[in-house]
């Protein structure tokens, strides 16, 4: 059972969305609650629900003002009405692990040409490049949320021995690049400007429009990286 005592706040995101905020924090049990509530509301949606965005510690729900306005009386706003509906749902306990927790193993080539920032990270943290790879591949990471780009998974938490702040200025990053930003690790599904420190690249497609399910990773899943050689990368 989830901890029913996680305190939350509810606030509007403009006039057509509502957020439940469990605290401005990166925390595994809070994120579990977010994903459990996301699953709960997918099974039993709120009236007028358009879609939801689960994040680290918040769940945002987009609703259809026009449809709901017809449904409710005029003395209250659609926001207030939706808030009450949501509070009712939040009183109900939710089960953890409604979906089975999937572990995805992701090959990464940490070779020099794919890892422009790994030397600096190693130097900064006073360890060898091999140790960076060893540490990065030995942990299992949780996908806390997707955002930023289609299929971009925010994962954590990274061992303190290899945490490093993001770059002050975004640079061009290639698709498949694996990066670290603070305690988070992630993979760029597409080429994009970005500020994460790049330590390797995966030959897997995190986002592929040709697939029926274009996105590889989903919030709540687990990831483990394993090291591959440049040869293996090129022949993957």
């Amino acid at each position, binding site marked *: 059972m989830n901890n029913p005592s996680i305190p939350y706040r509810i606030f509007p995101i403009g006039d057509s969305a509502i957020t439940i905020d469990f605290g401005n924090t990166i925390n595994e049990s809070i994120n579990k609650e977010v994903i459990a509530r996301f699953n709960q509301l997918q099974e039993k949606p709120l009236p007028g629900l358009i879609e939801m*965005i689960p994040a680290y510690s918040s769940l945002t729900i*987009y609703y259809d003002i026009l449809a709901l306005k017809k449904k409710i009386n005029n003395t209250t706003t659609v926001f207030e009405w939706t808030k009450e509906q949501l509070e009712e749902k939040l009183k109900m306990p939710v089960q953890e692990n409604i979906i089975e927790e999937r572990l995805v193993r992701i090959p990464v080539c940490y070779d020099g040409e794919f890892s422009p920032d790994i030397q600096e990270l190693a130097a900064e943290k006073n360890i060898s490049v091999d140790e960076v790879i060893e540490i990065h591949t030995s942990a299992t990471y949780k996908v806390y949320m997707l955002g930023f780009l289609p299929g*971009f998974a925010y994962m954590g938490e990274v061992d303190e021995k290899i945490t490093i702040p993001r770059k002050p200025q975004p640079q061009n990053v290639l698709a498949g690049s694996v990066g670290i930003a603070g305690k988070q690790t992630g993979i760029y599904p597409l080429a994009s400007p970005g500020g994460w420190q790049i330590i390797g690249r995966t030959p897997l497609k995190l986002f592929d429009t040709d697939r029926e399910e274009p996105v590889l990773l989903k919030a709540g899943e687990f990831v483990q990286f394993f090291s591959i050689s440049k040869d293996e990368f090129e022949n993957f």
Partner: protein
Amino acid sequence: MSLKIFKAGILDTIQDQGRYGHQHLGINPGGVMDKFSAQIANMLVGNDVKEAVIELHFPASVFIFQQPALIALSGADFSASINGEKIPSLHPVLVNKNSVLQFHRAAKGARAFIAVKGGFNIPIWLGSFSTNLKAAAGGFMGRALRKDDEIGFKKSSTNISYLGTKEFLVLPWKADHKWENSSTNEIFILPGNECCRLTDKSKEKIFGQPFTITNQSDRMGFRLKGEPLLTTTNEEVISSAVGFGTVQLLPDGQLIVLMADHQTTGGYPRVAHVISAHHSRLAQMKAGEMVRFRLANQQMAEELLIKQQQHLLQLQNACTFKLQEFFKRV
């Protein structure tokens, strides 16, 4: 055989009302910048309001019709012509084969729309025709329109016999657009969750000073320039949802308003949100123009959107009736 691009514009894409239901995967809704105008273009030709349209920026593409069509233009006034003769926005226009549609100057507004009766025959991706440029997916091959592209029409039952040998015919009714035709630069906003981080003086500044839309403004967001705003805390904002109209405070104290191609989540303080009923007004503003923010409340925001919708419904009924009457006579 259909609509061919004779010369490419700066950024013309296929868009519809947006791609919903995939934001939890990081896939943003996209869609037209000005939903209100795109719906009107569709109504004028008798389409469903959610049908795909072409969104034009200036300088816009030059188009050749390879088959006759019933079209309508809406949104920005780019001073359109067919075969060199000026045609108005907000009227249905019958266009004959081999006619050339082009746009001469950005007279008013920033984004114009072309709707074609029946819609465009392009594949749907994740429930929407919108072009997602970043993902290179949706719309016409996931990209902006280029020279020599040919966009097919879905089967259309337009009766063009009335056209005879004429090159084009502007039908004699105009969609009432005065709802959004106001020349005001006033944009209503609701407070964002992190607006409390602003110093009292900076809170006043949001409403006290106009902001200039800078030329670093595109379909992703409008960067504004004003006196920098200050916060009382530098506490990190953990990534959370953002939407069309979310006003974020950048580290340099300037504001960015997120537009159609916004990301799904962001980590900058959300100081405000532009109300939905004013998204279209903002989308039609150009770099160099000034925005003035006014504080609204939830109730005003909802009521304005409802009024806008009622106006659209009336317009749709009128358009349907006029089209039926016209083609009955033919």
